[in-house]
């Protein structure tokens, strides 16, 4: 079976190469009749990758350890659910999964109504570019990243899945990211194809839904990752500015900018070249993100490094970027663009996109700084988390401010609704004063909190004051996303700078005081009945001003197969206000426990806002009539 799957992927690659070459040669002779053949080719590639993926999932499910991949990421004790999801736990499987998503999306593309709007020339260019992306994946899967390596003799058991990955948050975080990355393939290929074939700006309308879908997947993947980091890693935070986290944020920033520049492009018939460039940039940044994670070039807390995918990813990404630059820089007659007044909605969208790109550039610079600095420094110089907080957070706060004000500007110029803008500005001043008087005086947090509240009021007031907006479904989507972002901004503004934490070693009956909460250690329980793990659980009671707040039961787990290290299971008292969060760091023979307790104000609004943004974005979906 191993050899059959490998051969099927190899044949897929040869097919894709052959079809792309044939279509290219015919296109040079102005023959664009290859479209039906290319579509059939895509269907065949999709069928093959679906079948080999099923084979791998089946092998994971029955723990067929003759597959090196199954041996490396599962063991016989792993629950079936986690065994199946090991599909994307390792590099080889995750590339297969990414390629599976790309192929399925290509297959969907054929049946979307938007596709029928394209002329044959654009379709041919589209498929050539799309096949090039698929060839890259097939090259990886049949070369440096083969998931079907056979083991002989077959080992009795596997190495097991990293316990940190045995959590629902982590199970869905990687596939969502890959779905997002895969989703950006179509806008990129279609943008380039449309420009190559001289087919104006129609692609902007046809890619709108794809951009939204990709954005939702990427956003939900990032938020789920942050939630996992908060609930599973036990360090009390959700974003550490680690290179691997930053890597997924960079394409997200570009993708978010694309959503906004494409609005300007569609409604104001301008920024055509910019949009082509940005749509492509987003995809290449997805590959850059994978390169950062997989190349081992950048020292990160996540040791994925040292794989053989670094060079191929870099070459592919650079080649794609150069092609994009070339295609965008060759002028076309419909490039003429005009600028609306700066004080207008398109002006603000332009500014916001600009800020998002700047943020992406800054994060990218921070990630590669250790590599860059080795050009002039004998020893690499890196940047700590303080760098990102200092440089990025003011820009994010400024973006939030623009979001609150933008709805009141006119489509072409000036201010549309002075009363509305006045209400929002008044909200900003009043809420800043209120937050300040409550003792939250940090200027940046104050600006962010006030901006967040301004967005909330702005969204509500826009719906009340604008005629016809309530009956326009996409507006609910767009403003709903902004409402979710506003909740996240408020959550970050408070949970970041105003988190209080403490660590202590407690014996039974002893208490510690963290931010006004008294945490008392009551008991340590030991549960060794579960065959997969050995667990210790501390029972803590929490009071504030003598009133009972709740109980915490942080755990320390020792998983079978991973006896050399134990894993903390965080416990929280969920709250929309201040959330009490505890990690059991360790315990000794005398029964004393060392604990880390933190008070996280408004942290749950980040997850609420994030969930709202991701779900409601689907209302932005617009139906395209088939031609």
């Amino acid at each position, binding site marked *: 079976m191993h050899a059959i799957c490998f051969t099927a992927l190899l044949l897929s690659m040869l097919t894709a190469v052959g079809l792309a070459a044939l279509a290219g040669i015919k296109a040079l002779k102005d023959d664009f009749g290859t479209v039906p053949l290319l579509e059939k080719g895509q269907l065949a590639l999709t069928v093959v990758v679906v079948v080999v993926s099923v084979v791998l999932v089946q092998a994971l499910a029955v723990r067929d350890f003759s597959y090196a991949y199954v041996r*490396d*990421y599962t063991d016989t004790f792993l629950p079936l659910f986690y065994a199946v999801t090991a599909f994307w*736990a*390792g590099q080889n499987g995750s590339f297969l999964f990414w390629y599976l998503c790309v192929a399925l999306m290509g297959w969907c593309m054929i049946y979307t109504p938007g596709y029928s709007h394209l002329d044959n020339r654009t379709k041919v260019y589209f498929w050539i570019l799309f096949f090039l992306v698929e060839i890259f994946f097939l090259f990886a899967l049949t070369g440096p990243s083969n998931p079907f390596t056979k083991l002989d003799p077959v080992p009795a058991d596997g*190495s*097991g899945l*990293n316990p*940190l990955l045995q959590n629902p948050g982590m199970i869905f975080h990687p596939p969502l990211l890959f779905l997002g990355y895969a989703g950006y393939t179509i806008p990129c290929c279609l943008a380039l194809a449309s420009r190559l074939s001289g087919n104006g700006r129609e692609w902007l309308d046809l890619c709108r839904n794809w951009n939204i879908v990709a954005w939702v997947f990427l956003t939900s993947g990032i938020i789920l990752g942050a939630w996992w980091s908060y609930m599973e890693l036990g*360090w009390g935070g959700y974003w550490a500015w680690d290179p691997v986290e930053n890597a997924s944020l960079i394409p997200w920033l570009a993708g978010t900018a694309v959503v906004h520049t494409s609005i300007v492009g569609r409604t104001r018939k301008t920024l055509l070249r910019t949009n082509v460039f940005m749509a492509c940039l987003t995809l290449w940044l997805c590959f850059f993100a994978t390169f950062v994670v997989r190349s081992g070039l950048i*020292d990160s*807390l*996540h*040791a*994925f490094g040292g794989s053989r995918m670094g060079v191929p990813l870099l070459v592919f990404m650079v080649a794609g970027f150069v092609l994009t630059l070339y295609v965008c820089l060759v002028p076309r007659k419909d490039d003429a663009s*005009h*600028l*609306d*007044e*700066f004080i207008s909605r398109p*002006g603000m969208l*332009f500014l916001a996109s*600009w800020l998002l790109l*700047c943020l992406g550039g*800054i994060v990218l*610079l921070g990630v590669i700084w*250790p590599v860059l600095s080795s050009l002039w420094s004998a*020893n*690499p*110089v*890196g*940047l*700590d988390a*303080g*760098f*990102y907080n*200092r*440089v990025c957070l*003011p*820009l994010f706060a400024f973006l939030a401010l623009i979001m609150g004000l933008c709805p009141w500007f006119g489509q072409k110029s000036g201010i549309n609704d002075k009363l509305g803008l006045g209400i929002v500005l008044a909200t900003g001043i009043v809420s800043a004063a209120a937050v300040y008087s409550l003792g939250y005086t940090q200027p940046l947090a104050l600006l962010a909190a006030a901006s967040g509240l301004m967005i909330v009021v702005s969204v509500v007031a826009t719906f009340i004051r604008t005629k016809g907006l309530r009956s326009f479904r996409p507006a609910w989507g767009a403003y709903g996303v902004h409402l979710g972002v506003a909740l996240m901004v408020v959550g970050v503004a408070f949970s970041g700078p105003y988190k209080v934490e403490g*660590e202590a*070693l407690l014996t039974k009956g002893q208490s510690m005081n963290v931010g006004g909460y008294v945490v008392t250690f009551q008991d340590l329980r030991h549960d060794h009945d579960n065959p997969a793990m050995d667990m*210790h659980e501390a029972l803590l009671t929490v009071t504030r001003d003598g009133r009972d707040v709740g109980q915490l039961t942080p755990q*320390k787990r020792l998983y079978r*197969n*991973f006896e*050399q*290290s*134990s*894993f*903390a299971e965080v416990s929280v008292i969920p709250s929309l206000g201040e959330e009490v969060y505890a*990690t*059991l*760091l*360790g*315990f*000794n*023979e005398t029964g*004393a426990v*060392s604990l*880390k307790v933190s008070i996280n104000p408004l942290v749950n609004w980040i997850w609420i806002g994030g969930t709202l943004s991701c779900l409601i974005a689907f209302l932005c979906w617009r139906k395209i009539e088939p031609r």
Partner: protein
Amino acid sequence: MTNAKNQKWVYLAAVLLVGAGVGYLLFSGLSQNSVYFLNVSEALAMPAEKLAQARLFGSVAGENIVPDPASLGVSFTAQDKDDPAKTIRVHYRGAVPDTFKAGVEVIVEGTFNPQTREFEASTLLTKCPSKYEKNEKGQMRPPGFNG
């Protein structure tokens, strides 16, 4: 036409303003939040006074891991990843991560003490591998530390 020309200036001014703001932020970030990223051997080769703030990459030596229950911290010897003979003694105060044990790769941030030639760490991070190797016998856990 004049309007369009004016708008160009407005955009240019906006770009310059945003650019200046971003430039200032970047400059202050780069000048205040830069730290040397060093392997143990590189840190040993650097003059100690240059290491006011550094991030050290190494692995935990098997011997002499001394937990400090009073401060929840641990003292250990960090080895160079390529040349285990090169070591620096590290004192860390704070919560020790779950995955800390002999043999793992660690990243510590803090300052190098020129007098004692030892590293005072304020953060201790262990690498988070996506793939775990099978248990190796002979690896020891920090004595008295069940966490």
